């Protein structure tokens, strides 16, 4: 099986020119019929592996990025992003690892109420989105992370979150409430029966 080198050039041009990572469907659509996209991407990935720029998969889409080891060189290009507060950062991590997660679940894990501003900051950054409603009393809204989140944090998939598999295996990612306060004040806390949820 040989790949048309012209197709490789075309994919290369498109990926270089694109303002955002491109998915394979877009490449299929823009390249001539019969172009073998997966093979073309594999070829490009290989060609650029040791260069100053690499072909990388983020959120299931493809983009060229500067090589990770050259980070120091690009001081001037660094975007100044607002630092997230510890509360916002933890909330973001909880949503990413537990998604879909409700507000109550986030609060349960952090052991503290969630101030409105915290979620607002994450929405504003475009990193979280409402995903649906849990089919439990009160039908609480569930949240998940966005594609922009994956792209920003250089992840291809939610499973690529650091330590995701280990945490999942250790049961640390279940959203089941501990129920420790059931005997006390919070006895009326919602019981979450299942993971089922309605998509928006």
């Amino acid at each position, binding site marked *: 099986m040989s790949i048309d080198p012209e197709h490789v050039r075309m994919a290369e041009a498109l990926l*270089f*020119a*694109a*303002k955002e990572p491109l998915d394979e469907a877009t490449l299929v659509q823009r390249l001539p019929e019969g172009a073998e996209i997966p093979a073309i991407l594999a070829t490009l990935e290989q060609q650029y592996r040791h260069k100053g720029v690499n072909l*990388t998969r*983020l959120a299931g889409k493809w*983009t*060229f*990025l*500067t*090589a*990770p080891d050259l*980070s120091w060189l*690009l001081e001037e*290009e*660094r*975007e100044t*992003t607002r*630092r*997230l*507060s*510890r*509360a916002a*950062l*933890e909330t*973001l*991590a*909880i949503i*990413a*690892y537990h998604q879909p997660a409700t507000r109550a679940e986030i609060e349960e*894990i*952090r*052991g*503290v*109420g969630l*101030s409105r*501003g*915290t979620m607002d900051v994450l929405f504003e950054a475009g990193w979280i989105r409402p995903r649906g409603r849990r089919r439990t009393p009160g039908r609480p809204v569930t949240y998940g992370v966005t594609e922009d989140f994956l*792209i*920003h*944090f*250089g992840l291809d998939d939610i499973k690529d*979150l*650091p*330590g995701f598999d280990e*945490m999942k295996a*250790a049961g*640390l990612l279940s959203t089941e409430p*501990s*129920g*420790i*306060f059931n*005997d*006390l*004040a*919070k006895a009326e806390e919602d019981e979450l029966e299942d993971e089922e949820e309605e998509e928006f």
Partner: protein
Amino acid sequence: MDKGSFEEAGQKNPDVIPLPTHALLVDLDGYEGPLDVLLVLARDQKVDLLKISILELAEQYLKFIEQAHALRLEVAADYLVMAAWLAYLKSRLLLPAEEEDGPSGEELADRLAFMLRKLEAMRAAAEKLTNGSIVGRDRFQRGRPEGVRIIRQSKFECSLRDLLQAYAAQKERKGNDNPLRLMRDAVYSVEAALERLEKMLGTLPEWTDLMAYLPDNLSDPFRRRSAQASTLLASLQMVKEGQLELRQGSTFGPIQVKKRKSGE
């Protein structure tokens, strides 16, 4: 102690979890809730969270709240609920296990330890996430993407139903009292004049007063004036098309018409 100060404290020192030195122990502002306090206290035990002494932790927490009270710090409800629960847990752990309903003291302690592990895992995850390879900070997209030039083409969306509804609706809207229709009855249209002129053309081959072509029984003066105007316009149109000749002997004199012979 309000949430705002929590956030501020976090921003000043987002990645470092404060250690419970004696001075810090009573500074509630440095903590993100009771679980955070417990986690910091547990870290101080310098053991794996799996091997932590929950009893010892509960005692430390209660002492911490006591100190806060002694210093007359305002302690948020969250912290007090935790204190009450830990006091309860302590009693369950210390008293001989009786055949009671609900989970045993050991089970409750395990649950708390698990919650602490979960929070600690998320803390670590958040840290790893920010230390990872972030696009725009550690790796960069193309600085000058050429992008795709989009050539827009409009496509109109409209169903037959939309079309029929629009037609029906505008007819309904106009209703019966259509002022333009009333006018139409009174006005002798240019089309009508043209039609009449064309039909009668040739029956009078010699110069004839244009007014002879007006329709009969125009009793209404308005209608008559309208007919005069329209007939004149129609005759001008026919002159332009080469079908008629038109003459007027004097200013305000009668206008005469004659069919134009072909070849002239």
